[in-house]
């Protein structure tokens, strides 16, 4: 009995396993890339029925976001303007521009709305609310990016659940319980700081202690993963998408989280009902 199977079949199990691993890996990687909002949403830039340019209207003409999206401060929904909002100006400016024909048609006939393609959309089970964000110091730019620089609007950020939670978690004060190190001593302040990307002095300041202070096992230390204030800005700068707080001496060092008693929720009830 010999050579029932040719010799090359000896390698077959290994090849199969390798092949499966390879395919599995590719599939996993593919799913991870192609089936996540990072791929499916970011960069979405459909052609709109009217080639409206945010860049011209906001950057050149200086229109405020809320001139058109006037529901953003009152409702969960930030509305697309009705045709009459456009016609406030365009009945005089570029009144005959063929590009504006759909707007004029809509203005004349209520049954012919301009069919804008929706770009930013959350799933139905997410109850996001615009008003509570823009009224409490979160700018449009945090989620929508620099719309003021776009000619055609593009989906800029992921809008995945992590995307929301990243901010919500940042604003939650976190506590760290000091553990024992391998020598049976409490962990050092600078080691804890390193874990959370902070400097030892910043952590000491956050907790109102000096750097040299020795901590106790079981002691609770305030930690934050970054600056909880960096997402917040003064309310008069909400729609100023170019605003940078670090360059604003009056507001640079203000602690809005504390001043305004900002409390985010990272629980399900924040967005799901």
């Amino acid at each position, binding site marked *: 009995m010999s050579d029932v199977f040719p010799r090359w079949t000896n390698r077959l199990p290994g090849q199969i396993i390798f092949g499966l691993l390879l395919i599995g890996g590719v599939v996993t990687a593919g799913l991870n890339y192609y089936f996540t909002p990072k791929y499916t949403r970011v960069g979405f830039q459909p052609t709109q029925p009217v080639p409206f340019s945010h860049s011209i209207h906001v950057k050149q003409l200086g229109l405020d976001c809320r001139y058109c999206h006037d529901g953003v401060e009152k*409702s969960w929904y930030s509305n697309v303007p009705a045709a*009459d909002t456009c016609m406030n100006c365009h009945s005089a400016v570029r009144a005959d521009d063929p590009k504006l024909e759909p707007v004029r048609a809509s203005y*004349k006939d209520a049954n012919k709305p301009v069919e804008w393609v929706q770009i930013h959309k959350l799933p139905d089970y997410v109850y996001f609310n615009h008003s509570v964000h823009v009224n409490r110091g979160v700018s449009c730019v945090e989620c929508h990016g620099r719309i003021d620089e776009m000619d055609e609007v593009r989906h800029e950020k992921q809008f995945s659940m992590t995307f929301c939670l990243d901010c919500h978690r940042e604003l939650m004060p976190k*506590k760290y319980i000091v553990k024992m190190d391998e020598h049976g001593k409490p962990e050092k302040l600078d080691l804890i700081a390193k874990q959370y990307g902070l400097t030892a002095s910043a952590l000491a300041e956050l907790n109102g202690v000096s750097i040299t202070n020795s901590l106790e096992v079981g002691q*609770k230390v305030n930690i934050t993963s970054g600056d909880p204030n960096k997402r917040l800005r003064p309310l008069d700068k909400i729609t100023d998408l170019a605003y940078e707080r670090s360059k604003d001496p009056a507001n640079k060092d203000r602690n809005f989280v504390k001043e305004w008693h900002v409390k985010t*929720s990272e629980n399900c009830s924040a967005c799901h009902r």
Partner: protein
Amino acid sequence: MNDNLILTNEQKSGPRYWRSLEHKADSPELRAFVEKEFPSGVDLIDDPVSRRNFMKIMSASFALAGLGVSGCRRPEHRILPFSKMPENYVHGSPQFFATAMPSRGSAIPLVAKSYDGRPVKVEGNAEFPGSNGGTDQYAQASILSLYDPDRGLNFKLAETEGKGDKKKKSLKVIAKAKVLEQLDGLANGTTHVLMEQSSSPSRARLVAGLKAKGVNFYEYEPIDFSVHAEAADIAFGPGVKPYYKLDEAKAILSLDCDFLGTEESAFQHIRDFADGRRVKDDHKENPAESMNRLYSVEGLLTLTGTNADHRLRIPTGSVIRVAALALAEALEGIGLDGAEDGISQLRAFAADLNTDFSKSHAVEGEAKADTAKWVRQCVEDLIRLAKRGDKTLVVAGYRQPKEVHLAAMAMNELLGNVGSTLLLQKANPSGNGTIADLKLRFNDGDNLVVLGGDPAYNAPADIEWAKLAEQAGRVIRQGYYIDQTAQGADAYIPAAHYLESWGDARTSDGTLVPVQPLIAPLFGGMTELEVLARIGGTESDPYKIVRKTFDGIAGSGDAKWEKFLHDGFLADSASAVESRGYDWDATRAAWEDGAKPVKVPGKGDYEVTFYRDHSMDDGRWCNNGWLLETPNPVTRIVWDNVLLMSYQTARELLGEEVAREELDFEELNKKSGGLPGRFGFKSDAGRFYQKVYKLEVNGKELEGPIWLLPGMADNVVGVALGYGRGLGRVGGVAGFNAYRARTSSGAHFAGGAKLTKKEPSATYEVACTQEQGIMDGRPVIREGNANDFVGHKDFVDHFDLDSTHHTTHIPKKGARYSWEKDQDEDLAASPYKKPFGGESNGPGKMDEERQQWGMVIDLGTCVGCDACVVACQSENNIPIVGKHQVAIGREMSWIRIDRYFSGDEHNPQVSYQGVACQHCEDAPCESVCPVNATVHDEEGLNLMAYNRCVGTRYCSNNCPYKVRRFNYYDYNRRPFGVEDGERKPGTFFNDDNDLNNSPLHPGNKSSNGEWELVRWYKDPSRGSVPGLDDGKKENGEFDPEWDLIKLSKNPDVTVRMRGVMEKCTYCVQRIQQGKIEQKVAARDTDNVKVPDGKIKTACEQVCPADAIAFGDISDKESEVYRLKRQNRNYSVLGFLDTRPRTTYLAKLRNPNVNMPDYYEIPNSVTEYNEKNHGNVFGGATPTHGEAKGHEKEAKH
């Protein structure tokens, strides 16, 4: 996030009658548009683009899109903004409009919430003088009737088919204008108009105009409350009606008056009754002094009877004898001059109550009840209070003849209640005839116009409606359904819902309220105002009609009108209160004339009592699934009416042998040492298959299942009206029609009835939500007597394992909850991790920087009316599941009312308790969920993340309160009444039909051979509506069911799918909205704390008794904080250490020591003491000592 502006292409051509907010703005071009867009159905038939065709095209383009550039992206959605922005409109924020729901001679002032022009929820108008925002269950459910797919959708005319004997009339869809032509030339003496009662001044104005032209008007209500006014007119002279103010009454005697349940405006009475009964602060006040007391005499077991402190069960027809005796006692006790004669006459009329009703109240062992003493002591109590200067009240119910009402009025006069608890209001009788007058005056060939109601279904049997309708030259019918009356009509006009058209009404106290529409008529229906105006040839725009009437009442001027619409009522327009002398002679004459002694029913010679149903009313809500699935508060039966009888009656009827087999008493009685068992029929694995009996009464025959209701008067059979109307895919087969056996003379009760078993014997399944009727010694509801309270303020702590006597590991009450922060160390002993607060706050501590939500339910004021159940259903998109699913325990209601009997099987005491998710701080459900789908948040809410739930149901198994509900089927997506693609009314979700098909189910007849998965893929938003979803019915009529179901949903709450668990969320959407509103207002300040009372859960908001309080338990100023520190506060199953956020205030009863049925301690407490060797209130043989001494001191 249900944004109607964002529509997919497919949706755009889908629902044809979609109304945007613009339609509500009543501009002429929109009017024109509406007329064009919604013709009376004719156009729809010829519409070439059917949904079916569109689906074909769409599925092709869908496939292309999938292969195109967008790859895995979501399907493209469009945003369709307005042409011109409506004023004051912000998409996404709800709008609120004041309106009112008319009901018979009254109306309920409401505020309706509207999203994008579609009403989704109604609430009581809290601005209305005296209102607390509460409503009844009917008002809450009325919104579902707006979206009822079985409403009359089209204008129709009858066509005659066949010849000679085979001639048959059937209604055919015709253009609106053609149908309205039928109304021409009716303004003369040969026209007879039959209407429902109404308080609308506009209708009165139009009717007056038509009467001048000779038109005859009649009113008919199968359940008629006008006997109250009739009696007042005799006693106090014509032109008055009584208005009861229960809040000021210290004691109330009800003579078969179910003012908490089925009387007119019961929700107002509940509010007032609760106000008089509430113990506001039990640290300071003595409940024996502050609580009111309720005596009830009745034949059925009603909400009023179950909430009474003393109850006498007397057959409905014999209540008049009790009334006579009570009046005699009152006359004697007060001492009216020259009344001796009358007193002896009354006593003679009452005759020997003790012999006839030997079991009329609870007694010890074999002793006989002393009915005469009961009445004497009751009246003495009233007189004692009256002499002390307190107000009392005697009320008689609508079922009773006017003599009983006169007796009640006379007693009120004697007790000095007229002008305080009994107000006489000026009344304007309509002057319209009755249905009997119609029969009398109707000539062959006259024209008959029927507005509302359904006389063919509910007219008394002796009227013989069918004959009457045949005599008529022309029958024109305006009604909400194609019902029995419509089927015999020549022309049919669909009625508009009250939220669809303009109207006006007066509330029970006469205040003028607007009936303001929130949406244009979905199917072009008309109100009776429009029909009357058309007949008269006057202005027929309902807005202008109502405006003209208003101008006539309040004076013209837009400002007044706008304020009227804004406030929802016209201030100071209530009927004037009159003060009148009492007419003793007229009363006496009426008594001598009308009072007839009634035969005492006996075995085989039963008395039938017909009653207004808690769900169906008189049948007007016949197709309303929310009401059908709301259990009757006393019987807990859904979807049916039954033949109710007492324990004794059932046993005699069945015979000793059968009774032992079928009733749940005998064996259990032995086991439980004399205490009764389940109080009802034995169930077969939780399901009740009841014997069907034939009931002969008034010369007619009814057939229905029998049901035992302990506490009813013996030999009385209770039958609910309003069932068996036989229309609608939801309620089509619910119950039997009791109107068939109802005559003008025996409208409310009739003697001489016989019950015989149906041959061959048959059983009928009855779905009942509560199999176990007793607490069996478990202190789920804790009760005490008011006069014991001062001596036993901490009595709630002496029950169960959480009593200090039983356990050591649970600290005493002072620290049982985490909100009592002083003894946190003890709490650390709990085996559960504290889910909220996190590390920063330590175990068992709350996150102090956030608000902590909690609830208190006051069992002392809750009367068990079920309004909260329907409000919750409306607010939270809770589906109905059908009788079959309820019968196997799958009802979905998030809040339920538990009803428990205690004491003996003839005269039990009844207690109610609303149970929703308790939001335990140590929630047992959370620790067993394998996927973290149910978790806690920082504010103490126990959350359900539907997307995470995989349906293991472990949480439900581990929940000690049994409040979690599981979606066994796709209840929200599949309609009722369809089987194998055909309409079959009364087809419910069950294992035998195709309503439970999964998406992988291969195609069958109902899905036109397509796989469910394919259907779902083509249109995920449509659901799997079997078969009939293509927008057409076989006979060419548009079937809007699926779109209507979607319209009725609250966009703030997720619509749950099959396979997920759900439960009460404390209305998390309202909490979030409240917080968001506060934060938006706070802007860059730190004023983010939501003030107490701003967030109201749906059940709290609707509760007419204000028995539910919700708020921040960490806020020392809040109402819940205060209530949680009342002595009576306890948590159910507290010994499990679940630390529920919902706690209860113990119920206090207020019995009178001198009554023959006085009970030293409530029966449930006796039960507890006996089964658990407890000694609450001094144990099984109580010694009252101090408490009683105090009571006596206080009394004298």
